[in-house]
């Protein structure tokens, strides 16, 4: 099945999709998306695989460190301690 997957990021206006790909996407384009992913990670963002689990029908919600072209990925900005 040719499923479209997305790289999404949280931003001020809610989350936005910064890239989409599927099984027919070229390796070059995937490399570009991976580069974008790695850039965000280097900036302190963290990423989660939010793909739907086939068995539980719920989001996997697993934190990932490397780009996974088979996953629906959510990028989350760096977090910090808040004020009392």
């Amino acid at each position, binding site marked *: 099945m040719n499923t479209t997957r997305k790289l999404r990021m949280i931003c001020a206006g809610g989350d936005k999709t910064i890239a989409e790909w599927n099984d027919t996407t070229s390796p070059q384009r995937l490399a570009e998306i991976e580069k974008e992913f790695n850039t965000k990670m280097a900036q302190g963002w963290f990423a989660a695989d939010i793909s739907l689990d086939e068995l539980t029908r719920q989001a996997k*919600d697993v934190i990932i460190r490397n780009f996974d072209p088979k996953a629906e990925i959510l990028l989350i900005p760096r977090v910090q301690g808040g004020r009392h």
Partner: protein
Amino acid sequence: MSRQQSDTAFPVGRIDPPHLWPAPNPTQGDYERAKDKARQLLRQIVPESSWREFENKGMLQIIGQRGCYVIYPCSQTEIRDLKSGQCVAFACLQLSISAPTYDRMVAEYLLIKNAEDVYWKTANIFLRTGNEFEIATLFLIAFDIALSVNLLIEVLRYGVTK
């Protein structure tokens, strides 16, 4: 169809939002739209049972190794003891960018679920000792009793001298 052709046929690539936000002057509608999107994302992330609980009680509960976490949209996260269920601390975590509160809940949920220790290292944790309050209360009660006794003695002494 070659890879190159299929890329053209299927428009995968960078997708820009209809308009960039935060705009110079975001309207109330922009805030509401952002809030709705963040809420939808939260719904997608958490299990159905947690979402129902969130809709009913306005909070998300996550059981971790170090405690039970209750995440609220508009206040600090409560950390409860796993056995007694009593609140033992409050945690405060925020995103480094301005984003709807539900996005902060998403971040907290994912961190607690996957990297609880990182959550403890990153969030500001305020332990709720409870003892300070009890000691202060006891001190005030003792002080009030002393004042009352003193007043009674003064009244009696005044009565005797009269």
